[in-house]
């Protein structure tokens, strides 16, 4: 069984983030790393392929600048290879444009199941996997907290407002996984060394026939303005000297919830 995992390389979320002047898109010019949210899909895919007793995990990703450092992290975890669409024309691409690029890249490989995170950590639009499924004509199950493959069916526990639903879908399908669906492994030293020589197939936008559908122009939306949010007025910060609980009680009384 081959499992495709859509992964994104993002600026380190722990570092300060900013918008680029001019385009107001997120500044992604620095070093990019594998989005933490994607490590769960990679791990899930590795486990599913292992359970199936054969096949491989294939990463699919896009980046404007040829960056592959984040992909190497996922390859080091055990993915077999990667398909990377890399092209300066991709800068400013929106969620639908991203889905078009990923769909075209995925059409170059054989697969039974496509996994993705529910949303990326940096852009969190949260619609790309479903847009991808629609473009490929596949069923989708989002917000999976567990995933099992049973012959040609995928069984998913899908989060709901009230708890979860058990959902089944025929394969191939797109499934988005939540953080916590599995515990991602740390790449081993052997894995890190092996990842250096694993294949990363690169495509351009023109290769995939998507000229004009990506980038800022393809997004068909614009940022009108960026402004600082109305700041909350500074509160009172006190160090607990044994009176912390009492301070909270007084506060709760002052706002009349007790």
């Amino acid at each position: 069984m081959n499992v495709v995992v859509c992964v994104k390389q993002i600026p380190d979320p722990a570092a300060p983030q900013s918008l680029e002047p001019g385009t107001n898109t997120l500044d992604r010019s620095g070093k990019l790393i594998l989005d933490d949210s994607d490590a769960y899909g990679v791990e899930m895919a590795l486990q599913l392929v292992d359970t199936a007793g054969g096949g491989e995990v294939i990463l699919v990703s896009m980046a404007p600048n040829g960056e592959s450092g984040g992909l190497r992290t996922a390859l080091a975890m055990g993915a077999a290879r990667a398909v990377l669409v890399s092209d300066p024309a991709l800068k400013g691409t929106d969620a639908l444009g991203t889905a078009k690029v990923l769909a075209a890249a995925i059409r170059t490989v054989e697969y039974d199941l496509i996994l993705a995170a529910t949303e990326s950590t940096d852009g969190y639009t949260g619609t790309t996997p479903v847009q991808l499924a629609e473009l490929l004509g596949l069923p989708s199950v989002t917000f999976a907290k567990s995933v099992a493959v049973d012959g040609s069916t995928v069984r998913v526990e899908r989060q709901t407002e009230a708890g979860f639903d058990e959902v089944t879908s025929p394969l191939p399908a797109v499934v988005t996984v939540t953080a916590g669906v599995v515990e991602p492994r740390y790449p081993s030293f052997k894995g890190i060394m092996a990842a250096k020589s694993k294949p990363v197939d690169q495509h351009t936008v023109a290769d995939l026939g998507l000229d004009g559908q990506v980038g800022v122009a393809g997004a068909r939306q614009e940022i009108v303005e960026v402004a600082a949010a109305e700041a909350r007025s500074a509160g009172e910060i006190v160090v607990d000297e044994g009176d912390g609980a009492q301070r909270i009680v007084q506060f709760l009384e002052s706002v009349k919830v007790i």
Partner: protein
Amino acid sequence: MSVAKIWVVAEPSASGITTTSLELLTAARELADSVEAISWGPNTQANAATLGEYGASVVHDAGDLAGKLPGVPVAAAIAALVASAGAPDAILVPTSYDGRDIAGRLSAKLDRPVLTNITGLSGAAGLVTEHQVFGGAQVVTARFTGDGPGIYVIRAKSFAAESAGGAAATVTALAPVETGSTGSATIQTSHVEERTGPALDEAAVVVSGGRGLGEAAGYELIEELARLLNGAAGASRAIVDAGWVPYSHQVGQTGKTVKPTVYLACGISGATQHMVGMKGSKNIVAVNKDADAPIFTIADLGIVGDVHKVLPALIDALKSRPA
């Protein structure tokens, strides 16, 4: 009015129509001359009164989906309606599990972009959206530049739901669209996780816990405190991911948006992902041992201290108060 016609995806709930859908109807009727709803499920006829009351003149009913996940069939029915009746200026969709599926499917079907995580809509020149970025530190306004309809996915509690006292909406049935295997993901069984006390997104007091509780057992302090304050117990993404509490407790970008009278954040550092979900609370109290935790930048009262000392003392103090 800013635009002529808006369609609102009105998501059915166990007891009617979700509150977020009613918030969207309220916003839509301020912006458009004509507001129509799209809904589904077995109870659309019964829900027509509520939908009309909040501003929809018509509800287009995609019907009982017989256990199929709504994303594919509802998006297909909306796309067919666009083809037969013409496109509205905007389609508003609530941020929810099924809402995001419908919006994504529809976007690809109509080849129209989506704007998501919207927290405000205004009608200056066409529709302009508001989004909070970097944990709510900045507000971005945006708009579509191409042909409509724009697809707008709007977060819960971005608007207040207010009845307009309208008459019941006229129900029109949408013809089912054959979607083949694409639409075949099916719910086999539903599991409801028991919760006591008020709902997280409706409670006047929310007590949330994070990593600072140290271990899963520490969450008992949060639950007891929530019970004593007649509030709801929430959680940061970190402890949900760690498996300490179910996802339904999560407050933040990927969880619930809450705006209680008091939000008590215990052992939560205040990652941007969390702040987006609770920054709109009327009052914020934070307890954290790290004086530099970002949560203190938005707290009305911040206690720099150990949750394992402050919370038990608070529980004792609340228990000893005269009833």
